[in-house]
């Protein structure tokens, strides 16, 4: 890992912890029936979210997935408004219209999480096209999963982006499962990054549980894309520690496998590294952790006390 500014590193850690606490709180709220609908927690994948967002500039853009809370928080979104959206409140990012899967904040360059697996790939490609046509030096970071890599739009999007040399980073979060399907049952090659070659594109494999490795890989791809070298495909190998969505019995994988990955928990790993390298001591870590808990508690409070959307306004706002 490269040398780095202490405050920056601590910042990564803080964000990762906030995401984890947030997802844990969400899972509990669903389990207790406080929130209705469904949600896809990103516990275990915080290093990907935080590492890749750390590599982006203010003017860059992101497209996200159904599992988007972590991406959104890492990009600087207000956890209170995310939580409020989960509660279906009018103070939520989508005013209760989108729910867990569909939120955006264009001022943050966050072009939206998304309920349709794979659909962000084309959106990101189009955003990249716009960047190119507008002569801007922004890049677009496109998150998608190993499951999404089987959608036709993966092929169509990467092909177009490569042909047109668009500044798009296609970042596959390979968490080894698409819902219940192990990646070996849905992807016919060992590594999704291998497929980059089929588009004349650079493909990179990264340890997705190493926040700094993710950051550095994304930074390098961004650098090249920003300088007109076109898109790249990064595959982050990671693991979702939680269930796929609310109420997932996880019968498709073993508790042993999960235990293994709990040992590789990106947060614990980074915490240890920070302490080992003298960036953090246990007391500070605890402080950060309880700070995160407070942030999440306040988000829940905010969400709970926010008002419901007005049903009478339901038919408004369909058109610009």
């Amino acid at each position: 890992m490269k040398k780095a500014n202490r405050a920056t590193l601590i910042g990564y850690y803080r964000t990762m912890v906030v995401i984890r606490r947030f997802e844990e709180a969400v899972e509990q709220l669903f389990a207790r029936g406080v929130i209705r609908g469904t949600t896809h927690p990103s516990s275990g994948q915080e290093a990907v979210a935080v590492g890749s967002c750390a590599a982006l500039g203010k003017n860059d853009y992101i497209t996200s997935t159904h599992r988007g809370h972590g991406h959104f928080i890492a990009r600087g979104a207000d956890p209170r408004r995310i939580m409020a959206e989960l509660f279906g409140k009018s103070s939520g990012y989508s005013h209760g219209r989108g729910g867990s899967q569909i939120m955006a904040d264009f001022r943050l360059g966050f072009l939206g999480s998304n309920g349709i697996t794979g659909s962000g790939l084309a959106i990101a490609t189009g955003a990249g096209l716009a960047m190119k046509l507008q002569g801007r030096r922004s890049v677009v970071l496109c998150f998608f999963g190993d499951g999404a890599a089987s959608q036709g739009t993966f092929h169509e999007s990467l092909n177009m982006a490569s042909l047109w040399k668009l500044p798009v980073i296609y970042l596959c979060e390979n968490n080894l499962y698409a819902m219940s399907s192990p990646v070996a049952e849905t992807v016919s090659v060992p590594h999704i990054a291998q497929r980059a070659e089929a588009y004349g594109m650079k493909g990179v494999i990264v340890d997705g549980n190493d926040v700094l490795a993710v950051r550095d890989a994304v930074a390098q791809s961004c650098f090249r894309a920003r300088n007109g070298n076109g898109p790249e495909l990064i595959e982050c190998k990671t693991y979702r520690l939680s269930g796929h969505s609310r109420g997932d019995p996880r019968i498709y994988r073993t508790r042993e496998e999960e235990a293994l990955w709990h040992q590789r928990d990106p947060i614990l790993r980074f915490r240890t590294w920070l302490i080992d390298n003298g960036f953090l001591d246990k007391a500070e870590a605890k402080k950060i952790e309880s700070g995160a808990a407070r942030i999440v508690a306040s988000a829940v409070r905010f969400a709970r006390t926010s008002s419901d959307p007005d049903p009478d306004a339901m038919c408004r706002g369909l058109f610009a």
Partner: protein
Amino acid sequence: MKTMSYTEALREALAAEMKRDDCVILLGEDIGRYGGAFGVTRSLLDRFGPQRVINTPISELSFVGAAVGAAMMGMRPVVEIMFMDFITLAMDPIVNMAAKLRYVFGDQARCPLVIRTVAGGGRCYGPTHSQSLEAWFVHTPGLKVVAPSTPADAQGLLISAIRDDNPVIFIEHKMLYNTKGPVPVPACRPVPFGRARRISRGSHITIVSWSWMACQTEIAAAMLREEGIEADAMDMRTLSPLDIEAVVESVKLTGRLLIVQEACRTGGVAAEIAARVFEAAHDYLNAPIRRVAGPDVPLSASPVLENAAMPDAERIVAAAMELVNFR
């Protein structure tokens, strides 16, 4: 008769048909060990093995296309599209291939394909997991469209769908899976397409619906009865073919027609039913045909908004009262 849930009734139908005919295979995302997002195919992998219960990658366009190809070769694929909203990705093979095969290629071609999918709101799943898109398929010649509301019909119509030599869009509803009802035993029995099911008899007003709205209509009919209004209520069960005769006949007696659909109002199947009834029974109508329908906006995730958007028994009752009191 045995009481079982809609989910169980569907599962039994699948199992029975798979047992009956080796050509029946299942294809879809997470339908294997996981049993599908709503558990309909649970246990079937264990019972029939991975050659018959095929977990697919997330590739809606091509696993539906592949199912069409397999159907052409004599298989009888039953495909699960996890949410009906995702059928948007598979419109090409359904509309340009499955629906047209027989018409264009003639007697040599058959496409015994069932596409099971889940429509509708009620679970706060938000705008891309709640749509009711049956109207698109009703507007596509060459498809049959089924939308059962009871466990018995779910089972019987799924059996008919699987045995049918034509492509069938089989629409389930997320609010129905846990509902229970009597189902004929011991044997699974097919329910024929194209015949509406009478929910209640009455002479004051005809009420027509399908899928989850048929359950709401049943509740509404009971509420109306308390008000002294006897509704002739019908569950269409299949939308293609559509048992328009039953509706017309009823309207000739009641003179009033209310159509209930969950899908957004404009351009829905209710409009087609209204148009046909008016064409056929113009003279008999004593009031305008009314539609209770979803609003012309996406369905929101927020419980408050979703609830406000979805038609329910109370709205049906209110519309029926208005119609009965018309002039």
